[in-house]
C-alpha cells in the first residue's frame, strides 16, 4: 500500500496492515473457549463471540446447553421475557431459526407457536433461513453509503461469488445488507457474525475474506 493513512483496527479490525492477533488486541482472557453452560446466569444469555455450531439438527437443548437454557429461564419472571435469549441460544446452536425451531422453543417455554413466530420474524438478527459459517452484514446506511458501502457490498458479493442473501458453495459465506450498525464513525462498517470490521474499503475485502478462510482452516 503506497499511502499510509490512519486506520482504527478496532479489536477485530485487523485487515492485514497490522500483524496482530485478536489475542494481542483484546488479551487472551477475552478470547477462546467459554463454558458452553454459559457461566454465571447473568451472562448466560449471550456469549462474547458467536461460536456458532450451525448444526441445524442439533437437539434443543441438551447437556451444557440445557443448563444454560435453565439459567436463562430462571432469570426471567415470565416465559415471554425469556423468549429472546432462548431464541439466541437456539440460533447459536443451529445457525438459524427454522419453523421447527420456533415450534420447539415455543414448546419448551410454554408459549404459542404463533407468538414465537411473531417475535422471531420481528427481529432481523434471527436468521430465518440457513446462513453460511460467516454472515457478512455490510452496512449501507447513510454514513457508510456516502463512503462507498455499495461498492464494498458489491466487492463482497464478487469475491464470495454469491448473490445477496445466498450462501457460497463452500458453505462459508453469506453476504447481507444491514441497516445502521451504529459505527458511523468508521465507515464502511461490516459485521461478520458478532465481530465488527471497521473502515473497510473495497481493497480490504480480499484480505478480510482471506482471514476468515484462515480461521476456518485453523478450526477456529
Amino acid at each position: 500500500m503506497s499511502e499510509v493513512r490512519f486506520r482504527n483496527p478496532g479489536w477485530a479490525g485487523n485487515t492485514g496492515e497490522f500483524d496482530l492477533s485478536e489475542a494481542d488486541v483484546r488479551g487472551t482472557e477475552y478470547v477462546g473457549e467459554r463454558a458452553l453452560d454459559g457461566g454465571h446466569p447473568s451472562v448466560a444469555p449471550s456469549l462474547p463471540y458467536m461460536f456458532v455450531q450451525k448444526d441445524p439438527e442439533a437437539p434443543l437443548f441438551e447437556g451444557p446447553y440445557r443448563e444454560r437454557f435453565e439459567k436463562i429461564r430462571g432469570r426471567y419472571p415470565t416465559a415471554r421475557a425469556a423468549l429472546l435469549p432462548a431464541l439466541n441460544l437456539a440460533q447459536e446452536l443451529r445457525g438459524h431459526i427454522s419453523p421447527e425451531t420456533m415450534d420447539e422453543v415455543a414448546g419448551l417455554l410454554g408459549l404459542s407457536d404463533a407468538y414465537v413466530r411473531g417475535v422471531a420474524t420481528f427481529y432481523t438478527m434471527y436468521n430465518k433461513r440457513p446462513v453460511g459459517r460467516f454472515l457478512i452484514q455490510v452496512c449501507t446506511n447513510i454514513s457508510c453509503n456516502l463512503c462507498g458501502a455499495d461498492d464494498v457490498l458489491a466487492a463482497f458479493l464478487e469475491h464470495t461469488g454469491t448473490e445477496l442473501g445466498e450462501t457460497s458453495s463452500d458453505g462459508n459465506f453469506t453476504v447481507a445488507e444491514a441497516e445502521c450498525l451504529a459505527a458511523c464513525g468508521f465507515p464502511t462498517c461490516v459485521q461478520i457474525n458478532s465481530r465488527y470490521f471497521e473502515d473497510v474499503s473495497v481493497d480490504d475485502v480480499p484480505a478480510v475474506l482471506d482471514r476468515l478462510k484462515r480461521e476456518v482452516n485453523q478450526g477456529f
Partner: protein
Amino acid sequence: MADNGRKAETVTLTMDGQEVTVPRGTSLLHAAESIGTEVPHYCYHPGLSAPAQCRICLVEVEGAPKLQPSCVTMAAEGQVVHTDSPAAKRMRQGVLEFYLVNHPLDCPICDMSGECMLQDYVFDEGREKGRGREPKRVFGRDDFGGDVLYYGDRCVMCTRCVRFMDEVARDSRLTVVERGSRAVIDTFFDRGLEGASFAGNVVDICPVGALVSKDFLHKARAWDLDHTPSICPNCSHGCNIELHTRDNLVQRLKPRENQEVNGHWMCDYGRANYEWMNRPGRLEAPAVGRGSDRRAADWREALELLFASLSAAEGDVALVGSATCSNEALAGLVALGEEMSGGEAGRVFRSPRAADEVPLPGFPLLVRRRDLVPNSDGAELLGFERAGNDDGQGGLEHAAEHGGVVIVLGDELVDQGEEFGANASLFVYLGTFDTAAAANADFVLPITTFAEEEGSFVNAQGRVQRFQQGLRPPESARPAWLVLGALVAALRGEETPGSAPEAFARLADAHPAFEGLTWEAVGDRGAALIAEAVHG
C-alpha cells in the same frame, strides 16, 4: 377532594365545549360517546384490551404536551378536551394518509365496503387525493383456515384479531409476523384456524376488510342487507344475533352485543348454521284429509274443519312439540291439549344434543350448549318432557301408535315412517316441510320458522329473549301461535290473540314460571325468569 382522601365517584370535564359528568375511570373515548361524539378508533374494541397503537383516537387535552389516545386516557376532574380541534383533525388526517400509503383502495370488490371503518373515516376526514408516488406493496391473500380469509393489503394492523384469539378465545393462533411495512397477520405457517370454535369472531371485529368470511365472500353488499335483531337458533344458549338478509334469504348471522348472554361474540357452529332457514320446498298451503282424500284447503276451511274435529274428538291427546318453536307456539299447544276433553297422554319434545359443551374461555358466560335447539328450556318449563336420543331421533313410540288424538308441532319426524299416527282418531301435523310420517295426518298445516315470525325463546340461563321477523314466510304459512291460538280461542269462546305480544301475555298468565314478565320488560335484551321457577 373530599375528606378521608376518598375520591368522588364521578368526574366532570369539558368535552368539545360541553360539560359532561361521567363515572371515574371512564375513558375519554366513552366520555365523548356519552355526548354523541364518535372518536375514530381501530385498535380499541370494548371487548378487548386497549393497546393504544392505532393512533387514530388521539384527542387534544388542554395542558398535556401532546395529543392523548382517548381510548386509554381516563377522564379527570376539570379536564378540557377537544376532539375536533385543528390539531386533532390535522393529526387524524395525517394518520389516515399513512393508513392509505399501502392500502389497495379496492373497495368495489371488498366485502367490508359499506361497513368499513377506514372507508368511513377517510370519507369523513381524509384527504381528497392521495399524494403517494411510489408503488404500493402487495401481499395478496392468505387462507387462514376455518371460515377466515386474510387480505394483507387491506390490514391496518390494529391487532384486534390477535388480541381476540389471545384474550377471549385463549388460543393464540394469530400473531403479527415481520414488522414495518412488511408486517402481516398470520398463523404459525401451515397451522391455521381449523378446529377453533370461536375464530369467526375475528371477521366481525376486523374494522376493515382484511379478515373476511369465506362463506360470505362476494355474496352481498353490506348496504343491501337488512338487519333483524334475533336469537341464534342453533343451541340453547341463545346468543343475541342479527339476521342479515337480502332477497328474502338469510345471508349471514352476526352477533349482537348483550353482556349478560354472549358479550360481543358468538360461536362458529351457530354462525355457520343458517342455510336451513333458506331451505326451499316448504309446505305452501293447509291440507285436509288422509291419504288419497288429501286436498288443499284455505285456512278458514281448514280451521273450521279442525275445530269441528277437535270438538268431537274422543280419547286422550298425545302432544309432540319441538324446541325450535317459540314459547308462544308451545304454550298454544299446551293450551290446546288442556281444552281437549280426553286428557293428555304425554307431552314430549326431541332435541339433537352435542357430546360436549364448548365454553368461550375469555367470556365464560358464553357456552355452546349441548342442546342444539334454541328453546329446550322453554319447552321443559312448559311441561314438555325430553324424548329420544342425542341425535334427536326415536322416543315417539307412544305417539306413533297412539289411538286418540295426536298433535305434532314443528317436529319434522324425519325418523318416523308412513305408519306414524295410523291408529290416531285425529292426527294434526303443524310443520314447515312435508314428511313421510305426515301421510296419516288429517290436517297438515304450514307454519312459519322462527326467522319468519316474532316470538320468544328461553335460553339455558333461564332468560326469556325475543326475536323479530326477518324473512317473509311462504304465502300460506302462519305463525304456530296464531294457528293454535285461534283454535284455543274458538274452543274457549274468547278472542284470538292478534299478535305475538298478546300470545306472550296469555302464556305469562297461564304459566307460573313466566309470571310477572311482560313483552316490554323482555325487550331487546331479554329478561331473566324468576330463579326458583327455573329448572324446578
